[in-house]
């Protein structure tokens, strides 16, 4: 082969891949859990450690499970969005305090506001492992049968809530 054609050939290969790459979304991380039953857990509650919080309590309801932590700055960014969503009453948001200090988590919620009816404590990160949490914040939409229908990696923003979460919740509630 003509060695002067080599650079061109390499370039053509790269262009083909770049072309295919344009059609893909690098931010979309597939979750094997979507469409599967939400992993069960039974964790102490943040404000009342004597009580436990478990997905079994939520059967028959559509709900969001939000992994957060007081040390996580993305959670602070997301926080006003969660407060608005909680106020709108569209869907209950349950919190899972991920690898956090209990007192710091409670201070954080009392300072910035608490969008969650109940917060579970996952101080060892076990629940996070079962749910395949990449990093907080992450949010799961779980339907009446306890099946995960959607997973948001990273902070929720108003647009995602409005265009994805709320329509999905409405559709699931109608089922």
């Amino acid at each position, binding site marked *: 082969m*003509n060695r*002067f*054609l080599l*650079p*061109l050939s390499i*370039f*053509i290969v*790269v*262009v083909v*891949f*770049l*072309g*295919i*790459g*344009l*059609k*893909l*979304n*690098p*931010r979309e*991380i*597939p979750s094997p859990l979507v469409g599967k039953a939400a992993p069960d857990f039974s964790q102490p509650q943040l404000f009342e450690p004597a009580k436990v919080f478990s997905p079994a309590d939520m059967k028959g309801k559509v709900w969001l499970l939000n992994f957060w932590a*007081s*040390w996580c*700055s993305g959670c*602070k*960014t997301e926080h*006003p969005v969660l407060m608005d969503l909680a106020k709108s009453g569209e869907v209950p948001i349950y919190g899972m305090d991920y690898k956090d200090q209990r*007192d*710091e988590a409670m*201070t*954080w919620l009392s*300072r910035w506001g608490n969008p969650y009816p109940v917060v579970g404590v996952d101080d060892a990160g076990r629940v996070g492992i079962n749910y395949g949490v990449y990093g907080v914040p992450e949010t799961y939409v779980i339907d009446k049968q306890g099946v995960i229908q959607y997973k948001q990696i990273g902070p929720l923003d108003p647009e995602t809530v409005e265009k994805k979460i709320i329509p999905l919740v409405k559709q699931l509630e109608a089922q």
Partner: protein
Amino acid sequence: MIPEIGHFALILALCVAVVQGILPIYGAAVGNSALMAVAKPAARGQFLLVLTAFGCLAYAFAEKDFSVLYVAATSNSQLPLHYRLAAIWGAHEGSLLLWTLILTIWMFAVTLFSAHLPESTRSRILGVMGLVSIGFLLFMLTVSNPFERLIPAAAEGRDLNPLLQDPGMVIHPPMLYMGYVGFSVAFAFAIAALLGGNLDAAWARWSRPWTTVAWCFLTVGIAMGSGWAYYELGWGGWWFWDPVENASFMPWLAGTALVHSLAVTDKRGGFKVWTVLLAIMAFSLSLLGTFLVRSGVLTSVHAFATDPKRGMFILAFLAIVIGGSLALYAWRAPRVGLGGSFAAMSREGMLLANNVLLVAAMGSVLLGTLYPLFLDALDLGKISVGPPYFDSVFVPLMAPAVFLMGVGPLAQWKKASLPDLAKRLKWAFGVSVITAIVLPFVMGTWTPLLSLGLLLAIWIATTSVVTLRERLTHVAGNSLGERLASVPRSYWGMLVAHCGIAVFIVGVTMVKGFETEKDVRMNVGETATIGDYLFRFDGAQDVVGPNYTAARGSFSVSRDGRETTVLYPEKRRYTAQNQVMTEAAIDPGLLRDLYVSLGEPLDDGAWSVRLYHKPFVDWIWGGCFIMALGGVLAISDRRYRIAWRRQEPAVPAATRAARRKVA
């Protein structure tokens, strides 16, 4: 009205670019000097038109015209003026305009400093740059118009990303773009030479200063971006192998190889084909970098909003420009012929080895950057390639390149003798090895990487001394001062740039080897120690900035009981987007940086705090600036000054001779 003028100026600029891209190249092909003469006024006209457009956008930002979509999306009425102006390149559309403006600035510079070029060469160069410019102007006018109106106007702008509200961001992108786009000149020279079929030493001599200037800008631009990441992102890192950083680093590697290969073509007439390919590569990688940043094919902290139409446009543009040039290369390069022959052990041989290593390093960065995309496209899963890959590939490639850097300047052209080189370098080698082994023990820890880094840095320093000493014995002059003065500036430039690498390596090695960090919870009055320094937290206060509110912590730093400094890190909340930013406080020093960043507020006025002690970290950027300084010295060399001066008087030789007689 003003934005429409800007829009219209862009449309006119496109028309001019089309004329500039077609007529002069055609004129050069058929030998029509009237058509060739179009190039110069067209390039200058295009520069003025794009400058007008840029001015109009700047005016819209200064006047807070939120009826312009781009202005509303990237600025805010509370944003101070200098950041409103920097917001011009704060997002996609405006940075394209900046790109195009800089391209036309380079064109304008070519029209100014090209009087000594043959008419056909100059018109081809400007023609090629015009063709590149068509692509960018079309891109703006079709899918990313910075002057698009927002009707009805927004009451308030969305604000500039707080990360970008920083003095470093005001200068970093223009510097980087000057470098990226500067390679378009070397590229245009190469394409012009391929079109004209005369790849001679003169071609390399003309290309050299342009390439060096672009390389200097790129070096400084990358260093500033890295410095910005260091103090603005608040985690104390200075290089993350992020796809967008890689996108700027790849043209730098190719450009560095080009600078060296041009030296061979200029001095010895060798490497012609290779030099042309590198010139095409350096600019192609700049374009590829633009594509990677703009199209969103890769995830990165820098990525702008994704729009598939834009991605498609740039990809098509890339395919035409790069594919076209490489096809031209495949067609014309075989006829160029080879330069003079040389032995493997010679300065040419070593420069070639250095080029191969630099290009291999560039290739491995390219592979690491695109690998996740390749796998994803082949449906083999999602992965990310991180620093471990790059570190493990990069060090083994760069270590021999740096070793050669010490030997190369001492080797003769054409054929050098290995025993002779070994004799001349034995002291440098001995000193480097012994110091590199012993010094880490003196400093307290010995690791192989620490020793290797020091070895390379000291090797460059000692061989530079040897090189300079030998050079001084060969130049004219009696006193040392006279001899130093008669060493050409370009030679000093090389030595200084190489020493910049040494300084850079010292910085990287020392930071990697000796940095310490601590995450602590600090209450008011509590202390923490890092390095030899004692930090006392004196509490945090609320402060109000122009467009943010912040908690400002106060830390008294002392060493052996003596107060060193007081640091004020901030946690800012930017009101427009309700975003929280960490503003680290740094006490810089020649031998160490002290770095404090505030984490999250805890109860009772306590904060989580992150403290760093970073020895020699400023040497990293210092080294880059020294490299760029070397480049500046090289282009201020006498022969270029003469070249510039010679072209100025457009006076017939006879008149000049007559004048000389009178004088």
